[in-house]
């Protein structure tokens, strides 16, 4: 598990906390860059769009949904594996989980936030977004509980809440460690954050029980969230979207892209935060195997979708399929197939699975594939629905492309802030995996 020899408890504390406590100019430069990219590419175009109207984006009367929605799904998808994997691996008691789960869960949280931002960007009148929450009011107006979008609101807020609690709960002992290692204001803050954690047996017991409970609770939630997101599409009768397979397809795709995302994040943590000792070959190997499995399931569902469409024989569906496979956006479709179905097969070879650089490339390719998958779903189906005379075309505008780029910067910014506030690797759980105590610390 530890590529460079097993550290002592003190070393664990020092390695992990130093990331938080010692901040060099490189960090500030990086944070400054990501923040300015986020402002310039995301918030400024959004502000412009708020003033002139959603018409600033490339959507039109044939394509009412565009990149904003496809990005929303992408980010929701990316959010999937963090908490889900962490919870599953916690229940199955897999020790290799312990050094990766914290940042994976953070990834969940931040991609959910980014996804929520895309909902805001997508809305025509975002200033009334609160109407979609079931807030009691004098007018007696409720949201429409039949709407898949309403399910979305519920599912995402629940998932966001649960994920936040889950990550927070797991961090409480670590916050105590931060408190102990720091002074002044930070110490006072972390005293609050850790609820005065003292490390008594009863505290450990309660934490362990609650954590397991939450892990069990979060798993079905995570599955339901992306099912519900898929229903935004599948509950419509639009050819190309109206598939029963969509819920498992989306869940699988989400875990797939999320796992690939974890690989990317792991690479960065290891490389730039010097966590080589904690994130090692075993993680990479296991994640690689998981990716292969997910890729196969994903490919299978994809084939299933094509097959059932063809077998169903509905002329509307066939036309939509034809456009997807051979129309204007066909190159993107085949790119997605290449990146998500074929490239991951390389990981059958240990040479690829064991190489950090190769895995980084593969994981990024997978996520590019998944990003285009969502785009294709949105861009090929709804501009060509039932009435040929109303067929149209969708191409994203510069505003949309810019906001897409900016969203990655927002994610990066949030992550950069995160590593300064929360230990990026679970200190106490890593310690659990150390071999029986060496008494030199």
């Amino acid at each position, binding site marked *: 598990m530890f590529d460079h020899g097993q550290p002592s408890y003190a070393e664990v504390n020092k390695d992990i906390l130093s990331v938080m406590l010692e901040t060099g100019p490189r960090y500030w430069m990086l944070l400054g860059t990501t923040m300015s990219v986020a402002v310039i590419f995301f918030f400024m175009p959004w502000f412009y769009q708020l003033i002139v109207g959603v018409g600033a984006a490339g959507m039109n009367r*044939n394509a009412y949904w565009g990149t904003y929605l496809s990005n929303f799904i992408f980010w929701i998808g990316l959010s999937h594996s963090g908490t889900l994997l962490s919870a599953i691996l916690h229940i199955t008691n897999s020790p290799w989980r312990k050094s990766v789960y914290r940042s994976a869960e953070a990834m969940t949280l931040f991609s959910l936030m980014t996804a929520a931002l895309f909902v805001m960007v997508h809305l025509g009148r975002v200033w009334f977004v609160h109407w979609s929450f079931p807030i009691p009011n004098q007018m007696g107006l409720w949201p429409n509980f039949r709407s898949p979008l309403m399910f979305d609101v519920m599912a995402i807020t629940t998932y966001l809440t649960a994920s936040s609690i889950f990550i927070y709960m797991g961090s409480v002992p670590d916050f105590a460690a931060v408190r102990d290692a720091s002074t002044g204001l930070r110490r006072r803050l972390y005293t609050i954050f850790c609820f005065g954690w003292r490390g008594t047996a009863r505290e450990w017991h309660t934490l362990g029980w609650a954590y397991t409970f939450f892990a069990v609770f979060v798993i079905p939630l995570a599955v339901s969230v992306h099912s519900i997101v898929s229903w935004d599409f599948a509950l419509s009768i639009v050819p190309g979207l109206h598939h029963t397979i969509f819920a498992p397809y989306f869940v699988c795709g989400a875990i797939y892209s999320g796992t690939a995302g974890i690989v990317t994040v792991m690479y960065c943590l290891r490389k730039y935060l010097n966590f080589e000792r904690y994130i090692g070959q075993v993680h990479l190997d296991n994640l690689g195997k998981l990716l292969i499995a997910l890729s196969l399931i994903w490919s299978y569902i994809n084939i299933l979708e094509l097959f059932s469409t063809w077998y169903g024989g509905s*002329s*509307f569906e066939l*036309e939509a399929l034809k456009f997807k496979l051979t129309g204007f956006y066909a190159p993107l479709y085949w790119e997605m197939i290449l990146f998500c179905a074929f490239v991951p097969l390389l990981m059958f070879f240990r040479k690829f699975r064991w190489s950090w650089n190769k895995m980084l490339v593969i994981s990024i390719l997978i996520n590019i594939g998944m990003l285009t998958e969502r785009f294709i779903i949105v861009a090929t189906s709804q501009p*060509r629905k*039932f*009435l*040929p*005379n*109303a067929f149209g075309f969708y191409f994203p505008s510069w505003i949309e492309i810019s906001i897409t780029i900016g969203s990655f910067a927002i994610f990066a910014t949030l992550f950069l802030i995160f590593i300064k506030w929360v230990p990026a690797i679970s200190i106490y759980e890593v310690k659990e995996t150390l071999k029986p105590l060496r008494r030199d610390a």
Partner: protein
Amino acid sequence: MSKISRRDLLQYIGAGGIGAVGGVLYSESIERDVELLIPQVVPPEDYSPGIATWYNTVCNQCSAGCGISVRIREGKAKKIEGNPVHPVSQGRLCARGQSGLNVLYNPDRIREPLTNAGQRGTGNFYPISWDEVLTTIGSRIGRLKIENNASRVRLLTGRVRGHLDELFAQFMGLLGSDHYQQYDFTYPSALKAANKISFGIDQLPYYDIKNADLLLSFGADYLGTWISPVHHSLAYGHMRQGRAGRRGKTVQVEPRMSLSGAAADEWVAARPGTEGLLALGIAHILVSDGHYNGSDRDQWSDVLQAYSPSAVSAETDISEGNIRQLAREFGTSKAALAIAGGATTAGTNAVASAVAVNALNHLAGNLGQPGGIIFNSDQAFSATPGTRQAGMQGILDLVEAMEAGEVDVLLVHDSNPIFSLPDGVGFRQALDKVPLIVALSSFRDETTEQADLILPTNTYLESWGDDVPDPGVGFPVASISQPVVTTLYDTLPVGDIMLSLVRQIGGELPMAMPWRTMEEFVKERWREEYEKRGSADQDFEAFWQAALEAGVWGQPGVMTGDQIVPSGASTIAAITNPASQFAGSETDYPLVLHPYLSASLLDGRGANLPWLQELPDPLTSVVYGSWAELNPATAEDLGIREGDVLEVETPAGSVSVPALIFPALRPGVVAMPIGQGHTAYGRYARNRGANPMDLVSMQIDDRSGDLAWAATRARVRNTGERLQIIKTDGVTRTLGRQILGPKNDHA
């Protein structure tokens, strides 16, 4: 809680204070905007806020003369609908008519009298007072009159009917000038001339489409642009589904499918310019196959000898079988009707074509019959519609006179010859020789831009007047036009301007034309008419109020005078070969140019109305801009795709327009809509598309003196540039989807 220190207390007070200020600011921010309640100083009698009132008047967007009802709320016009009691529109109205609101509230209206301060053609105009402008014109004309040179004053108007026409005529007559002409591009002069030849009656008869069983239309887009589209549409609807168990059939003969062609059961794309020949071919079969059994059968047989099906088939490119089939149907239908219009009556042999079509009606025996041609023997009132139409010959005479320096003052009202005439006429150049050009217009169109003085007129929704639809509806009808809103700007109704001029000129004119306003004049004329007709069952004022409320006066069911059924002799005598001669040789110019009236912009007069600019063309769905249509096969031969910018060249000139592939167009024809290509005429019209009139060679049909605007050959060249054609259509094939109805249906 332990005791609170002073410092803490201050902090709490501070927090509370900030909160309170925030609360006030928040409440202030959700305040409503201050709105004012502006009462009226003195309310008008029929004013009730929040409730709409309807006023009836007459549409002036084309020459059909539909009655309209305008919805008024709080003194503003909100919507135009057809006048339900008006026999022409019967409560219905076309897109152009409904866009009349855009005329009234057009941002580009002329709001005050303008002068160009001696710099003609620069487009710079300066405001001038009504007094000054009227004095200038009045003294100029007055001097000419005193010098006995009144014939040096010319008046050119658009289509003007009713008593405004009489006012103009009186005015010019009293001046001593007989040069009052009307020019309206859409006026069917050739048809009228042909009818005069065939039937001996100088009018447009009523075509009773409503009761016809077979309607054979030669180029006449009767549902879109021809004569009275709304009335024809009503008739069409009735003919199709209004009679139980009897569905009328329509056949359309034209090289490019028009709105009526799309509605027709059969679309026959005869070679351009040979539609009249086809009519004669059908006539030949009608006579030879014994469908016609009149006493003059032998004469018919003789004159139609040359037009045997085989000969006609070779000329028209329509199979012999098809011609025979058409003839059989035409001959056996209970009520068959043939009409001619559009490009068929815009060739060099336009009258001959129309006469050929008239021959068909003769042979079908539908004259004076239901479902046939009905003559309006009683023209309501003294108005004589259309007699002032100059035709092309009249315009050429005017141009000649201007060139020769015989015109000192040219008054132009509501007519835009610079736009709607080919450059070959030289109208624009001739204007340079005229010392004073006065435009009476609501908009700065191309011709108005050349004027020295612009007298802004009220739109038809702000004016008094009356109208007699031409052709009528089979019984006497006259409509009243009344202002439905108060005048928006410092403009005057055109009748009032003329009457003011009368007073300015002085002499015996004010004695002979004593009215102060158009309203007075119209009312007096109606009173005279009322008394003449001896309708004494109520006093005139009551009648007048009733007429104003109804917007129309008529005597339905009264067919005054016997229906004249002319003999066929004059038609027989007039039949000549109706093949059109095209300008340009076939080798240099392989294609035939087919300009057609735009369904929304008509001859271009609708181009300044945003609703019409945004109205998808019925057959191509194109908005904003013009295009050249090519048959898919022709386009493929020439290697042209949709959106390629073409240079369309004719002997008369060339324009650049994007190409549009149009499936219902005869190969070898390039079709272009008329209407765009304005160089002035407001923000919505200006510099948009191309004007096909720039391509039309100056050719005249001798017998009517009308412009043969569909007799030019053309060639196209792909410039290699691309231009997006803005259209709303996606895919125009059903892809096997049963959108237009289930496939295997018994109906």
